């Protein structure tokens, strides 16, 4: 296995690019209602930004951006947001995932709009965190 060597040019370029990838990821997540996009696409972009820093700066520096141990709990949290929104609707008398029953006092279609947004955020968090955690686990052996 080749040893990891830090290259200053690649590091600088990726340092400049990564925040914009991340910004675009948030755009894709939050703009999913109006244009092609959504939680999964945004989540992969978010994880791409994090993984870019891991690839260029190495796991030590990369971990200051996103702790390795956080991957699985954050992924669980993302799915839990999704599940929680659905379950909240169930508790308030509707079916599971029936956003029209969410207790926020809006018209049903606005509530559905809001429900979709919350769910997409959950999906984005889950996908980003889990893709990073899979990457970390696949490389576990190499950074002993």
């Amino acid at each position, binding site marked *: 296995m080749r040893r990891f060597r830090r290259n200053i040019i690649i590091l600088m370029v990726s340092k400049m690019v990564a925040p914009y990838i991340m910004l675009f990821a948030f755009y894709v997540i939050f703009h999913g209602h109006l244009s092609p996009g959504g939680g999964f696409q945004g989540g992969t972009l978010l994880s791409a930004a994090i993984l870019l820093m891991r690839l260029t700066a190495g796991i030590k520096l990369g971990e200051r951006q996103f702790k390795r141990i956080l991957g699985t709990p954050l992924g669980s949290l993302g799915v839990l947001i999704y599940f929680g929104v659905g379950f909240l609707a169930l508790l308030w008398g509707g079916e599971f995932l029936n956003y029209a029953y969410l207790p926020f006092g809006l018209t049903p279609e606005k509530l559905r709009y809001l429900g979709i947004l919350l769910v997409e955020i959950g999906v984005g968090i889950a996908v980003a965190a889990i893709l990073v*955690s899979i990457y970390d686990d696949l490389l*576990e052996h190499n950074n002993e």
Partner: protein
Amino acid sequence: MWPLSIKRPGGVPIKVIIAFFLLIFCGLLIYVSATLPLRGDSLAPMHRDQSAVGSPGASAYYIRNAFRDTATPNMVTAILADYRGYDTLGEETVILTAGLICYLLLRKKER
């Protein structure tokens, strides 16, 4: 599956037989796809407003009602997160499962 791809002494190589069956499979698929409704025909069964027994056709229903029901212009998002939201929850669970498996198999033991 694996013993199949190991060399057997003598006889027709088993690889050739499998490749032959795969060609037949490919031919059958092409034949079947030729009998499908024409692509791009907006009167094909899956695009109609009503199915053969009068139940609403899902795809046409989404196009007509997605914005009215969910105030979301992007129909794919509306289907993904609302009409068929349970599938998407399943999909998130699949990827969580993959994460958990990688954790289970590869992560170093904690001391």
